[in-house]
């Protein structure tokens, strides 16, 4: 993993919100305003903390510097930040899959990547220049945990192998290369 300051990374922030209208929006504003890119929001409405707050898990992308600004801005806005900087999805993995992607049910491939790897598909590009019946390529970006890159990659290999797809792996898994 490159530790250059301008590298965008994925972060998970756990927030506790008071159960009042507009609270969620108020919590998300500092993220967008500080250059963070929201990836997903998991709002556990039925699950209340012992203090009567609602836990919200937010996945976002930002450079390390901006991420610090985001956490500060959240705290300044009075949002209770339970966990920040513990990067649940801190490594990124891009692979290119080659083969009969369409005929082997691409959406099934993707859901299996989601279910069977420790990562999450954050981006997909498909190129099937000769139509669905011919060989096509897909670029898949997975967000995963720092220590799980190798196991995520093995899971990708296993799914691809089963569907007779070829995996072009990154040189240093999860790394800069």
């Amino acid at each position, binding site marked *: 993993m490159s530790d250059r300051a301008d590298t965008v990374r994925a972060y998970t922030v756990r927030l506790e919100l008071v159960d009042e209208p507009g609270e969620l929006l108020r919590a998300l504003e500092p993220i967008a305003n500080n250059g963070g890119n929201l990836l997903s929001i998991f709002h556990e409405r039925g699950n209340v903390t012992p203090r009567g707050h609602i836990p919200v898990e937010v996945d976002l992308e930002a450079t390390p510097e901006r991420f610090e600004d985001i956490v500060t801005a959240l705290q300044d806005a009075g949002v209770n930040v339970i966990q920040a900087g513990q990067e649940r999805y801190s490594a990124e993995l891009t692979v*290119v899959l080659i083969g009969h992607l369409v005929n082997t049910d691409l959406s099934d491939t993707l859901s299996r990547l989601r279910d069977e790897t420790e990562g999450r598909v954050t981006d997909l590009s498909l190129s099937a*220049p000769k139509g669905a019946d011919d060989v*096509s*390529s897909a*670029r898949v970006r997975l967000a995963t945990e720092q220590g799980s890159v190798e196991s995520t990659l093995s899971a990708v290999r296993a799914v691809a192998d089963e569907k007779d797809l070829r995996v*072009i792996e990154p*040189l240093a898994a999860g790394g800069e290369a």
Partner: protein
Amino acid sequence: MDLAIVGSGVVGRSVADLASDYGHRVTAMADSSSAAVDPDGLDVAAVLDRKETEGAVGTADPEAALEADYDVLVEATPTTLGDAQPGFGHVKAALERDRHVVLANKGPVAERYADVMALAAESDGEVRFEATVGGAIPVLSTIEDYGPGKISAARGILNGTANFILSRMAAEGLSYEHVLAEAQDLGVAEADPSFDVEGTDAALKCVIVANVLAQGAREYTLEDAIVAGIEEIPPSALELAQEDGRTIRLIGEVSGGEVRVGPRLVPRDSDLAPDGTRNIVQLETENAGRLNVSGRGAGGPETATAVLADVGRLE
């Protein structure tokens, strides 16, 4: 030094041609069917001319070159797998006569490294093989100078043909078949390109590096390498890589006891994404970070310079 050159292909002929520039004399030269021997030094120009016009370097039996007077045997016969013959036999014959051996042929050190080293241990002669990895690039001597024990990994582009094909496909959006035909027209790919495009050639070089890095603690052969080639890569895959600021290159890797060759995603601006036939090797060193050596990885004069550098090291 007096050289006996066994193998009169592109590399063997270039070594003969350049030897006198480096202060050496060629006393014997052999191809698969004949040999020319002269203890006072061959007329290299005449031998090469004869090879070109008559298809044979001389009139003597090829074995005569092995029995000739020489200080260094230059083994430049084609690389063979498995028992690595006849190259291995040539190495054995020279070492048993306490002569030095300089290899351009990958077979003996990729497939029978331990056997070669055992013969060398018993001999007053030494074995060197700089030319087997990366052509003109000083890969093995850099590893030797730096200390194999202080290098944790090596990776790189070790096949110019595969790199040429992938970089052309990426730049022009052309199919593999189209670019391969173009490479064959340019003389960059051989009529039968399988050794290059299937990754075997790069894998043999990686196996040799792995053997050098292991320092005898473990022997590697081609069987230990995980190898994938580039034939099935469609232009669409390169295009998707490109959109993401990356490209695909055939990369060989020696790391953590594993030898692996296959197409990999690398950043477009990476050192490991050279264009054309250029080769590069990247060493992960203990005390000096990453060390890159790059240059021409194949070709007659290029490989001959590596052979002659080895001969120079034996003086």
